[in-house]
């Protein structure tokens, strides 16, 4: 059976599920950010697969914008983690209760 659109979409779903598990289950804030990057990459694979199997280039343009937003998100997210680490001496997401009422 030759590789088709379904294979790429299922690969994308598998990567997204792994990232989802990482975001929900992990305690280290840096690992949570890494899992978010895996989820964004999974979405990009689906976009590029749709673009290739319909010969419409807009999917790849959207992937470029997702990459821009992912880069901005990684920069701000890691800056937040470092700022919290300075004041709290931990990056454990279950100990971040600054905004808890």
């Amino acid at each position, binding site marked *: 059976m030759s590789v088709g659109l379904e294979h790429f979409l299922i690969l994308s779903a598998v990567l997204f599920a792994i990232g989802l598990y990482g975001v929900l289950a992990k305690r280290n804030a840096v690992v949570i950010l890494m899992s978010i990057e895996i989820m964004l990459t999974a979405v990009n694979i689906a976009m590029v697969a749709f*673009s290739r199997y319909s010969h419409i280039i807009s999917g790849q343009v959207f992937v470029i914008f997702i990459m821009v937003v*992912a880069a901005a998100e990684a920069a701000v997210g890691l800056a937040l983690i470092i700022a919290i680490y300075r004041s709290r001496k931990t990056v454990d997401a279950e100990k971040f209760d600054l905004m808890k009422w």
Partner: protein
Amino acid sequence: MMGLDIAFWVLAVVSVGAALAVVLMRDIFRAALFLMLCFLTVAGIYITLSADFLAGAQVLIYVGAIGVLIIFAIMLTRESRRGSPSGRLRLPALFIGLLFLVTMVFVVVSTDWHVIAELPTEPTTTAIAQALFSGEDGFVLAFEIAAALLLAAIIGAIVLVREK
């Protein structure tokens, strides 16, 4: 097409294995290295989808910029041998992830996709540039907003980590 199929299966297995290593590794630094391996194999998958420009951008932005940024963050927030333990939500997270996966696989398999099987032969860089900057239904405004977003993100990151 046969070579592309073999390349897809190898890249898919390696990328899924690397992603699993990211969420299962106890050592955060090794998890970051596996994340970069995962990004590299995804660049290879873009090549099998004949998206040459995006494969280059993936290597530059994800493997280069974001990978180095994450390793820097790990070095700056090194917790004393804590590793990367799972939290209380481990089993619910596993359940939600599997539920999502089963739902998506079911939807993908049962949908009748209208696909064009033959490979696009032209390089994509010119086509992407035309789609971005062409006057009618282009993405010029979104492009400018992306520039403003990047500037805001840089300034925000500097303000957040600046020493008081």
